């Protein structure tokens, strides 16, 4: 399984994500710089990490979404390649138009940094196949702009097409329909606010995130 992690100026979860991918796949991911317009051939997964790309200037993820590397990410996704956006990576994917909706300031205006419980709404995806449908899992969140909003038609379509991957068990940040993670129509692109890479080994106190990476490995190995 050949993976890559994109590094933007201001990414700060790229190392953790690389460690998680190395741990589970046994192969170190390639680091892609935001200014790269060419990416290595044969990548199975391109992952966009959390952080504060370009200082969250203008809107979270807005500048990163227009980086040269994002054209390659979009091409990869269009070909059916897997794309995973975590936290700021999710914001980048919505800003790039690869996922619908937008991530706005948390309803309570606070930066939220804690464990949350999530429902696995859709287990029938390469990202969530390691979980049972309807299973409750725990992952940490750490974000200021995690309040997912889209118009009612888009939200209905996400529900009807089974594209809500994860839902908060309680209202965390004001997200419409408590959405924590969504898929594109082809189900090969996932964006989520919680951090699976922060819960992959026993020393983290929780390993619920590990099954997301193991699920990918099972599909791609």
């Amino acid at each position, binding site marked *: 399984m050949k993976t890559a992690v994109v590094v933007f100026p201001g990414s700060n979860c790229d190392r953790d994500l690389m460690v998680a991918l190395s741990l589970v796949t046994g192969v170190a991911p390639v680091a892609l710089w935001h200014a790269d317009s060419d990416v290595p051939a044969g990548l199975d997964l391109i992952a966009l990490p959390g952080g504060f790309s370009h200082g969250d200037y203008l809107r979270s993820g807005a500048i990163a979404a227009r980086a040269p590397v994002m054209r390659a990410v979009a091409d990869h996704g269009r070909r059916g390649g897997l794309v995973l956006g975590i936290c700021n990576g999710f914001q980048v994917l919505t*800003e790039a138009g690869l996922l619908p909706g*937008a991530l*706005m300031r948390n*309803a*309570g*205006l606070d930066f939220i940094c804690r464990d949350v419980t999530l429902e696995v709404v859709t287990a029938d995806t390469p990202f969530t196949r390691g979980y049972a449908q309807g299973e409750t899992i725990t992952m940490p969140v750490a974000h200021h702009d995690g309040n997912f*909003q*889209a118009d009612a038609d888009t939200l209905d379509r996400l529900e009807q097409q089974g594209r809500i991957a994860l839902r908060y068990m309680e209202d965390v940040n*004001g997200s419409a329909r408590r959405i924590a993670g969504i898929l594109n129509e082809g189900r090969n692109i996932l964006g989520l606010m919680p951090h699976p890479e922060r819960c992959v080994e026993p020393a983290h106190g929780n390993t619920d995130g590990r099954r997301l990476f193991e699920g990918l490995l099972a599909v791609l190995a």
Partner: protein
Amino acid sequence: MKARVTVSLKPGVLDPQGRAILHALEGLGFAGVHDVRVGKVIELELADGTTPEAVEEMGRKLLANPVIENFRVEVA
């Protein structure tokens, strides 16, 4: 030449920041404030002859997020 791009949240999009400001104004004793919406103003210094259409395109491609925001361009 200069252009000013005013970015505002679309009607109906919840604005938690605006709501916090509304509450703060009420706390200061200002009565009769029904709603507050926060946007941003982006001032551009442009080469002479830049067309308003080009500035519109900047708005569409980067300065505003069409999912949640509207924008207005004034060229001076």
